[in-house]
């Protein structure tokens, strides 16, 4: 689907986004961005009555849409006293409308991590991804540096929307709509759309080069990645950085590729009595997002903790994001350059702060 000819065959022009949105809403529940009461932008399936959905590359909510695929909290199975029974999520087809390239790359990353996870996959197979090309760099974002944007990477979305600013068109915006997958193509089959031509695809590429050229110099990130993989970062630096980690899990919750979870059981407090008068214990097992920056995350049953020190946990986190060790499995780094960790970290040890510090320390 991603080669030139197919892309041309599956590319269309769209004057009015509402046509596409309304059409998809007939078959899918729409998941869009809206502002909550505090003015925070968020992905939501429940659009408030007075709210207008937000759309466009400039709206990158602090929380990515990962919770729609990897639920923050969900039941896994239950025990009724005799047998265990799986509780798979009840799902309806959803369309995530207007997802940026970084978050789409993260979803593709999680698709690999959760390839054999029945809960994730049950949700994933019912989700249609409509991506959007970014038209300018966002603050904190360095997607181009880690091969995650600013344009939607091939095959990470079912449909891609790219705004073409046509010269001499009196500011008229026209959208290029590309079907990247069979699922995407089927979703728009019933729409009578004008085919795009090669000129439109060339214009998209031209716009990509323009956006790429607008990114500021993030070479310290590449330098730091190299130092990290050379094992040339002194322990003292990790210790220094870790003093500022509050173990709040803000970074791991907001990171769109973070996938760690733990499980716990809810025990029925009032065991039912059977005919034989013996008590039956009923339980439900749930899983919730966890964080490798929590002190107890790696603690073993014996009580031994291989990451007892905060410095070990902070080092491990960045190793997981930028180590070459993960390339054979995931074919890319675990960071998609969204910059959310920088935005949220109360101790200012998000990606930019850490990578800059590594670059400065190791460079000297």
């Amino acid at each position, binding site marked *: 689907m991603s080669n030139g000819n197919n892309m041309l065959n599956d590319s269309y022009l769209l004057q009015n986004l509402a046509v596409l949105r309304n059409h998809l809403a007939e078959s899918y529940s729409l998941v869009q961005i809206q502002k909550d009461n505090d003015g925070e932008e968020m992905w939501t399936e429940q659009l408030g009555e007075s709210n207008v959905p937000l759309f466009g590359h400039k709206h990158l909510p602090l929380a990515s849409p990962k919770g729609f695929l990897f639920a923050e909290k969900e039941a896994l199975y239950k025990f009724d006293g005799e047998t265990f029974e799986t509780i798979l999520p009840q799902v309806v087809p959803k369309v995530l409308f207007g997802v940026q390239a970084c978050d789409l790359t993260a979803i593709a990353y999680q698709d690999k991590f959760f390839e054999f996870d029945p809960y994730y996959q049950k949700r994933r197979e019912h989700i249609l991804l409509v991506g959007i090309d970014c038209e300018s760099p966002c603050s904190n974002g360095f997607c181009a540096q880690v091969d995650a944007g600013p344009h939607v990477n091939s095959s990470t979305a079912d449909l891609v929307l790219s705004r073409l600013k046509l010269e001499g068109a009196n500011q008229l915006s026209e959208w290029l709509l590309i079907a990247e997958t069979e699922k995407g193509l089927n979703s728009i089959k019933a729409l009578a759309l004008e085919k795009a031509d090669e000129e439109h695809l060339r214009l998209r590429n031209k716009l990509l080069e323009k956006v790429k050229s607008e990114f500021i110099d993030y070479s310290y990130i590449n330098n730091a990645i190299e130092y990290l993989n050379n094992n040339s970062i002194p322990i003292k630096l990790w210790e220094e950085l870790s003093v500022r980690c509050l173990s709040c899990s803000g970074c791991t919750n907001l990171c769109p590729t973070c996938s760690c979870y733990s499980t716990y*059981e809810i025990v029925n407090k009032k065991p039912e009595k059977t005919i034989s008068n013996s008590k039956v214990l009923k339980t439900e097992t749930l899983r919730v997002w966890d964080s490798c920056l929590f002190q107890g995350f790696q603690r073993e049953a014996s009580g031994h903790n291989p990451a007892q020190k905060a410095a070990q946990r902070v080092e491990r986190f960045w190793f997981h994001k930028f180590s070459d060790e993960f390339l054979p499995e995931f074919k890319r780094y675990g960071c998609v350059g969204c910059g959310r960790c920088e935005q949220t970290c109360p101790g200012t040890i998000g990606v930019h702060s850490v990578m800059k510090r590594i670059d400065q320390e190791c460079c000297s």
Partner: protein
Amino acid sequence: MLQLTPQTIRIVDVYDDGTHARHFTFEPKGFVHNKPIGIGQFFMLTLPGVGLAPFTYTSIPDKTGRFNALIRKVGHLTEKLFTLRKGDVLGYNGPFGSGWPVDQVKQKKVLIVAGGCGLAPVATTIDYLINNDHSTSVTLLYGARDIESQVLKNERTRWRSKIKLFETLEIGGGGKNTINVCKSNNHPGFLKLFNIPTLCIFVVLNAG
């Protein structure tokens, strides 16, 4: 897809087998093992309301699906496990792990060294070597603190006529089937003591 939900197993036999150790036999309830289980692989037991923990197979499932585990009471979960009786049900997930390359032991002499409840993980290896005629000879050197600490009594009785079995005790050895040894790191001397010739394969496990 991964099977995260445990399958139900029932305890069909349980008896004390060593200090703070019990020998369990489990039977699948409403399922059959759908994957072959390799030597050296392990499984998880789930105790509803308590938690889950990994254990080693002391015997791989037979035709009826029954399998054994030698479990030592070492903490919260095993303490609860030891309150269960014949007929009680619990959860099972497995097998996990890659297992050991036991098929590489072809026509070689094999020495297996195990200590305490560390004998449990090698029990399937010993049975495999006995049943598949893969090695020219098998020697098991099993060390324990005292006679009460020795595990897998029934298995050792069965093996005694089929392999060379040396048992050592730190305390109270010298009786039938046991040798009293002091702690020694002198391996060549140790091997000479048991008259073990040139060796090709070592399998060493310790209770840790």
